[in-house]
């Protein structure tokens, strides 16, 4: 038998007092409630262990309160308080409440799967981005196959012999300068340069000339790092200064096959230019900048802001009105 506590005693006492004040015997109360007299006595004494379960106890107590004209809500609140202290009734009331609410393994499986998916997803995304940015691999054998003599033969005569002696990494994307005097230097290009995507360092005030000697060898690690601050080439500053001119390379004998595209930006514009050999410039240019591109036709041009660019092809103004401008974006191809 469980020990009774204060709320049960208080509740039992209220039932008993009310019954006695109404002059009803336990037997009469039990008969009215259709329950056995023992249950009435148990409720009055607070000994709930003799009762069949909490669902029945609550039902009996509610009926008893109604019979004795006691406030039902108040009595049920007292009963709830009394039941809270009884472990026996907690079990009887809700035997299955003790069962685990959730299967932990299901939850773990869910989070494990989510984690695996996340890792795989990020891996695929990383790989995909790498594929996009991956440089066109120039196998060393390819460069080795290219006789140095041939490279020299393609060298324009206008090239400064001094600049040829300079390491290519210190030269600003010049066709002549890209052909190194020292073969060991040419076969160790910067990865960006090998990709054929040149991201010239462009400042707001200093226009930039970029040219690609596509004719010499489009796949050769032609371009050098324009950002290299350690340039010892005396020609380099001069080239930087000569912003609105085509590079010297365009004047070279190979220029017959090349088309020089000069673009001046009057506003911020995303610009993409690509020649037949897949040499490419793609980046956002700021207002006031100029870029010059030399390459083999067909040259594919996309400008994000058609009204912010002025394009000259081989020195002639190239009107964009002839092309369809959609949402201020223009795209055209300079056919051979």
């Amino acid at each position, binding site marked *: 038998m469980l020990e009774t506590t204060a709320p049960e005693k208080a509740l039992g006492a209220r039932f008993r007092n009310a019954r006695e004040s109404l002059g009803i015997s336990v037997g009469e109360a039990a008969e009215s409630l*259709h329950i056995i007299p023992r249950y009435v006595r148990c409720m009055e004494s607070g000994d709930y262990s003799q009762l069949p379960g909490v669902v029945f106890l609550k039902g009996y107590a509610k009926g008893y309160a109604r019979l004795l004209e006691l406030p039902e809500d108040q009595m049920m609140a007292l009963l709830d308080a009394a039941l809270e202290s009884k472990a026996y009734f907690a079990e009887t*009331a809700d035997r*299955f409440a003790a069962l685990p*609410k959730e299967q932990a393994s299901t939850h773990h499986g869910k989070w494990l*799967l989510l984690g695996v998916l996340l890792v795989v997803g990020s891996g695929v995304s990383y790989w995909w981005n790498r594929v996009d940015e991956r440089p066109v691999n120039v196998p060393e054998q390819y460069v080795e196959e290219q006789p140095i003599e041939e490279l020299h033969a393609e060298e324009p005569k206008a090239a400064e012999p001094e600049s040829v002696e300079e390491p290519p990494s210190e030269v600003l994307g010049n066709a002549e300068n890209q052909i190194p005097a020292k073969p060991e230097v040419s076969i160790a290009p910067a990865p960006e340069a090998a990709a054929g995507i040149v991201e010239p360092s462009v400042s707001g005030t200093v226009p930039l000339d970029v040219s690609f000697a596509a004719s010499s060898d489009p796949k050769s690690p032609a371009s050098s790092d324009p950002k290299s601050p350690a340039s010892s080439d005396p020609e380099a500053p001069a080239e930087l200064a000569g912003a609105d001119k085509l590079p010297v390379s365009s004047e070279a004998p190979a220029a017959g096959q090349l088309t020089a595209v000069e673009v001046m930006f009057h506003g911020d514009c995303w610009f993409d230019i690509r020649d037949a050999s897949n040499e490419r410039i793609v980046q956002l240019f700021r207002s006031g900048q100029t870029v010059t591109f030399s390459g083999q036709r067909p040259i594919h041009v996309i400008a994000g802001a058609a009204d912010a660019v002025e394009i000259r092809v081989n020195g002639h103004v190239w009107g964009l009105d002839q092309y369809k401008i959609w949402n201020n974006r223009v795209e055209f191809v300079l056919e051979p």
Partner: protein
Amino acid sequence: MFKRLRGLFSSDLSIDLGTANTLIYVRGRGIVLNEPSVVAIRHQGAQKTVAAVGAEAKRMLGRTPGNITAIRPLRDGVIADFYVTEKMLQHFIHKVHENSFITPSPRVLVCVPSLSTQVERKAIRESALGAGAREVFLIEEPMAAAIGAGLPVEEATGSMVVDIGGGTTETAIISLNGIVYADSVRIGGDRFDEAITTYVRRNYGSLIGDATAERIKQEIGCACEGLELREIDVRGRNLAEGVPRSFTLNSEEILEAMQEALAAILQSIKSALEQSPPELASDIAERGIILTGGGALLRGLDRLISEETGLPVIVAEDPLTCVARGGGKALEIIDRRGSGMFFME
């Protein structure tokens, strides 16, 4: 395979697919949905589309234009319209998984009337599978109600439960996790509403809708004499004059209207007591009868049954949700003891 994968992101559900209301209990979250089992169907030529489901559709009952039909896809506790039931279940399952970014495919436990036929059970199972469930368990409503009410169903003592739903009243005697005796009468809350509508038409010459009849039952309905007398003002269409008229009904009139339906329920309970084995009858006589379901909320019903049977009658706590809660607990038992305990084929 995909259902299993989606199942990892779904919660197990216990569905009380009732004639009047559908309740859904989610493990660990409790009752998450309690909506009327009503679907509004829009007809566009030969094509049918679901216009609204649940409470929104119930508001349309009796107020729809020609191209919309608000229907209750369950009748007498079983499926009357397979397609619409499937659509309704689909809507409800999605509703309880609103935050899920993957189409849910939960394990679903559906409560079915104890005397439902194989065909009716198969229809419910197929309907739940069609709505996206990956596994469907069926449990008899009185068993779920008893578990939900907190009865000691696993003990070797007789417990009697009477579940008064919208379409059916289920009476069962349960012992040792099994149903010893079950009876199901196709009388429930809906029959009370019909009785009130008929009474009003006969005595007041006025027509009232189902929604009004249900409101009258909930506000002033009572099952026995000697309770507080209540009144309600009702507006209905006068049959003779053809115009809306207002009149007042009191609880004694409603008691008179519902007498026949109440007598049928009483008869079902008495016959259960008559047919129960003596040992179990003795247990029931000592402990009493538990009332669950929305019908148990009818004022004075416990007193009526108690007076008629001479047994203590107890209305379970939150009787409307007992079946769904019991189903939820049964799902927990599946994980502990396997699915062979309470479930039906």
